[in-house]
């Protein structure tokens, strides 16, 4: 079953055609990677999924819901979470608080005026958040301020914040950008582990190592359009991909 269906999406910035008739279908439970050279329109496409950009034409359907024109928080409440290229976390708050916020957002909706409840008495939120922190291996650091974490740990925390919401679809924008090899491998392991939960993932990635170790299906984007789609092994050998993405060099 398709969880995300993109059809005929066009987006231009002034004279620059960033996306040109993009069609894409993401199957439920799959890890779908979107790769492509710089400027191919990967981030533009992702921004069309989360309400940051509105395509000029075309549709983006998430299940039966159209995501076009919806505000970011509505899209999240519909079940789409997003990991950013640079981790977006609540850096002045503790790790536990960071995870509690999305947990509450999922339970209480986009706004709840709980001004007299004590947060430290809310066992449900606390336990769920602590479980999540344990899952990503940050439980001992729960009282640290998030700003003091390493890049890799910030990524873990951001993933925890997305996963605790049990999203139907998780969007990952270059999840290992700027990471050391060790951090990258840790992140891959973590992403593989959360694959067991059956969360559909769309990954935008530069790092081929990451793509080939994670993805079930790959779409190659070049000059704003999907030039090729298939299993990682098929993509590897496709001459069009090597031409567009690698400038003809062999992988």
């Amino acid at each position, binding site marked *: 079953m398709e969880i995300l269906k993109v059809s005929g999406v066009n987006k231009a910035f002034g004279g620059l055609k960033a996306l040109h008739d993009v069609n894409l279908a993401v199957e439920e439970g799959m890890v779908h990677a979107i790769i492509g050279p710089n400027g191919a329109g990967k981030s533009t496409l992702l921004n069309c999924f*989360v309400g940051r950009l509105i395509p000029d034409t075309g549709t983006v359907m998430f299940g039966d819901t159209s995501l076009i024109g919806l*505000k*970011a*928080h*509505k899209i*999240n*409440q519909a079940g789409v*979470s*997003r990991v*950013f290229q640079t981790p*977006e*976390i*609540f*850096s*002045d*708050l*503790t790790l536990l*608080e960071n995870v*509690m*916020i*999305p947990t*509450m*957002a*999922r339970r*209480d*909706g*986009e*706004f*709840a*005026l*709980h*001004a*007299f*409840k*004590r*947060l*430290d*008495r*809310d066992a449900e*939120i606390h336990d769920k958040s602590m479980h999540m922190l344990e899952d990503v291996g940050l439980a001992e650091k729960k*009282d*640290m*301020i998030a700003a003091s974490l390493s890049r890799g740990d910030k990524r873990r925390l951001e993933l925890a*914040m997305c996963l605790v*919401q049990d999203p139907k679809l998780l969007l990952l924008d270059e999840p290992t950008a700027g990471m050391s090899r060790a951090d990258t491998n840790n992140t891959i392991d973590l992403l593989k582990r959360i694959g067991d939960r059956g969360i559909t993932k769309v990954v935008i990635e530069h790092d081929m190592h990451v793509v080939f170790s994670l993805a079930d299906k790959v779409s190659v984007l070049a000059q704003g359009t999907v030039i090729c789609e298939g299993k990682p092994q098929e993509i590897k050998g496709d001459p069009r991909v090597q031409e567009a993405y690698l400038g003809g060099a062999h992988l």
Partner: protein
Amino acid sequence: MTSKTSPMRDWIFFVVFAIAVLTMPIWLAPIGAGYPDLLQKFMIYGLFATGFNLLFGLTGYLSFGHAAFLGVGSYSAVWTFKLLGMNPVPAAIVAVITSGIFALLIGYVSLRRSGIYFSILTLAFAQMSYNLAYSVLTPITNGETGLRVLRTDPRLFDSSNAVDGPLIANLFGIEMTGYAGFYFCAIVLLIAFFIAQRIFRSPFGIMLRAVKTNQNRMNYTGLNPRPYTLAAFVISGMYAGLAGALLCITDPLAGAERMQWTASGEVVLMTILGGAGTLLGPIFGAALIKYFENIFSAFNDQTLHEIFGFLPDFIEVPVVSVTSLFVGEGWHLTLGVLFMLIVIFLPGGLMEGFSRIGRLFKRSSGKSESRGAAAPAD
């Protein structure tokens, strides 16, 4: 590292705070602040700053127009006196409601922008309110003379219409002046402080801090920051309105100058001086500013000559002429210098200073403990 919170600790904290507030007339007497008028000001402006801090300290939205709500609260309170009688309780309730509605309108428009644009919008609204109160709305506000309760006013529920002397707010016969006025303000402050403490510890409070830290992540977490900031704005406007009502309860006169931008700036100073985002900081800041205002503005050349009298004349004269710039009318200079020093050396305000001192003590006691623990091992 953050300190752990627990309901027990918060109760202890609150009880200690309550005792400290209620015994103020005793322990503030030695530094010359133990008289009711000044103590009332501590309470009222402490309340004002506590409310302001709920917006600025938690969400980071810097309102430069909070004096408007103080003024609205004052006018509402005086009108309640005029129409219903001199009981302070309905006056306070009416003031909270009207300032809340007022804050809802101003906040709804102003919160469309953030950062400096938000500050400018709130400032513009406050100056508009000031000008409305000063001239346009004279029938309601009595313009520059100020609104006061007159003997001819209906005061529907006042049984004792025949009292002589000036009209003073009274709670079932207790006149709200002097220490009675202080204790009334103190109890209101304690209730408001308790509510603020609960908000700090609540899910709502943590959402407000999330607004301050990262609105982008908040949006992508399925939360809508706008109603959170608006709720914080309205609550803090209600606090300001209540403070305005207390000003009129202790002295039933409301003037437009209460809404001036200088008054809005003052509450910003109080909050930053004490420590924005902390519970006690704004109250310390308010007390410090009001204390200095009273002490330094009361100084004149005469008192300076007495203080520096021990110096030889040729030194005394220049010293007095320089320091006289900083006292009396010029006490704002002292305030300015103090503010600069705090912002530069203690960006977290007085509260940061206290916690640094606390840590210093903890470290020295921690050292002796570890030494004690190491001894048996030897």
